[in-house]
C-alpha cells in the first residue's frame, strides 16, 4: 500500500539532515516528467543534480525510500476484487507459514499482527488481489493446499467499498474523501 502521500516528513530525523528532509518533501508527490528530473528537483532547492542523485541513492540504500516507481490503481488495471485473509496460526508456526504465503505472486502484503481475544483470534494477515472474487477464492484454495493450511481457521474479508483519501499532510492541504464502490 502506498502511503507516501499521507506521511508527514518530521522536522528532525535521526541521521537525516535538513537537505534530505527538504528533498523527501519535494518529491513526495511525484517526480517531474522531464528529461532530467533530478536536475529540476535540485534547481528548485539549490542543490546540484549530482548532489540530488547522491542523496537519493543514499536514502534508498538506507531503506528510507523503499523504491521509486509507479503506483497503480489496482481497480483501474482490472483487479476488481481484493480480500484480506486472516488466519489463526499457532504462534510457533507463524513465521514459517508467513513465508510460505508470501511466496505466491497473487499475495501483495503479508504481516503478523496481534490477536484481540476473545473477539478476534487471528494473527496472520495477507492480502489477495484478483480480477474477480472467483479468482481470489481459487487462489486461496491453491494456497491452502500448497502451504498445508487445511486445518487452520481462517476468514476471508472481501472489501465492499473503498474510501479513498487524498492530500499530503506535509503541505497541509485540506483532506478530501470520496467513496468508490467495488464489485
Amino acid at each position: 500500500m502506498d502511503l507516501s502521500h499521507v506521511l508527514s516528513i518530521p522536522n528532525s530525523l535521526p541521521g537525516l539532515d535538513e537537505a534530505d528532509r527538504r528533498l523527501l518533501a519535494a518529491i513526495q508527490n511525484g517526480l517531474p516528467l522531464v528529461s532530467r528530473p533530478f536536475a529540476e528537483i535540485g534547481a528548485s532547492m539549490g542543490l546540484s543534480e549530482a548532489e540530488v542523485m547522491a542523496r537519493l541513492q543514499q536514502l534508498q540504500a538506507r531503506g528510507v525510500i523503499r523504491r521509486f516507481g509507479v503506483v497503480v490503481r489496482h481497480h483501474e488495471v482490472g483487479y476488481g476484487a481484493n480480500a484480506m485473509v486472516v488466519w489463526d496460526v499457532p504462534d510457533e508456526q507463524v513465521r514459517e507459514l508467513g513465508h510460505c504465503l508470501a511466496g505466491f505472486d497473487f499475495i501483495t502484503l503479508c504481516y503478523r499482527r496481534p490477536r484481540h481475544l476473545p473477539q478476534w483470534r487471528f494473527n496472520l494477515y495477507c492480502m489477495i488481489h484478483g480480477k474477480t472474487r472467483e479468482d481470489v477464492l481459487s487462489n486461496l484454495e491453491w494456497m491452502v493446499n500448497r502451504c498445508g493450511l487445511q486445518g487452520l481457521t481462517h476468514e476471508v474479508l472481501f472489501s465492499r467499498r473503498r474510501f479513498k483519501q487524498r492530500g499530503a499532510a506535509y503541505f497541509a492541504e485540506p483532506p478530501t474523501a470520496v467513496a468508490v464502490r467495488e464489485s
Partner: protein
Amino acid sequence: MDALDRAIINNLQGGFPVCDEPYRAVAGQLGTTEEELLRRLDALLESGTLSRFGPMYHAERLGGGLTLAAMQIPHDDFERVAELVNAFPEVAHNYAREHVLNMWFVLATETPERIDQVIAAIERDTGYKVHNMPKQEEFFVGLRFEA
C-alpha cells in the same frame, strides 16, 4: 491501454533508476523513445490508471507511526461513522469489509506516539471502540499488479 502502456506499468512498478537521464534509460529497455515514455506516463496519470509516480517511503524509517485498525459499526450508523473517521488526516485508506469488524483503516502519523492519541480521538468522536492491529512482523510487501 495497449502493449506499451502495460509494459511501462509492469516495468516501472519494479523500480526506477537514479541517473541523469532516467527516462531515456527506461525507454531504451522498453524499445521506445524518451519522448513517448513521458507522454504515456503523463496520460496514465491523467486518466487515473496510475495514482502517482515517485518514491515509496518506509514509514518507520522516516520516524513515523503506521498501523491497521478495525471497528465494529452497526449497519445503520456506518455512513455517519465513516465520515467522521475519514475526516482525520491520519486515516490513509479505509475499507468497508464483510465481517463483524466491518471497517478497516490504516493510520499513518508523524510519530509512533501519535497513533494512540488518534485512536483515542476516533473513539471519542464516534463512540465506538477502535481495535489497534499493529504489524508485529513483515513477511512481504510487494504491492505489484501485472497489467
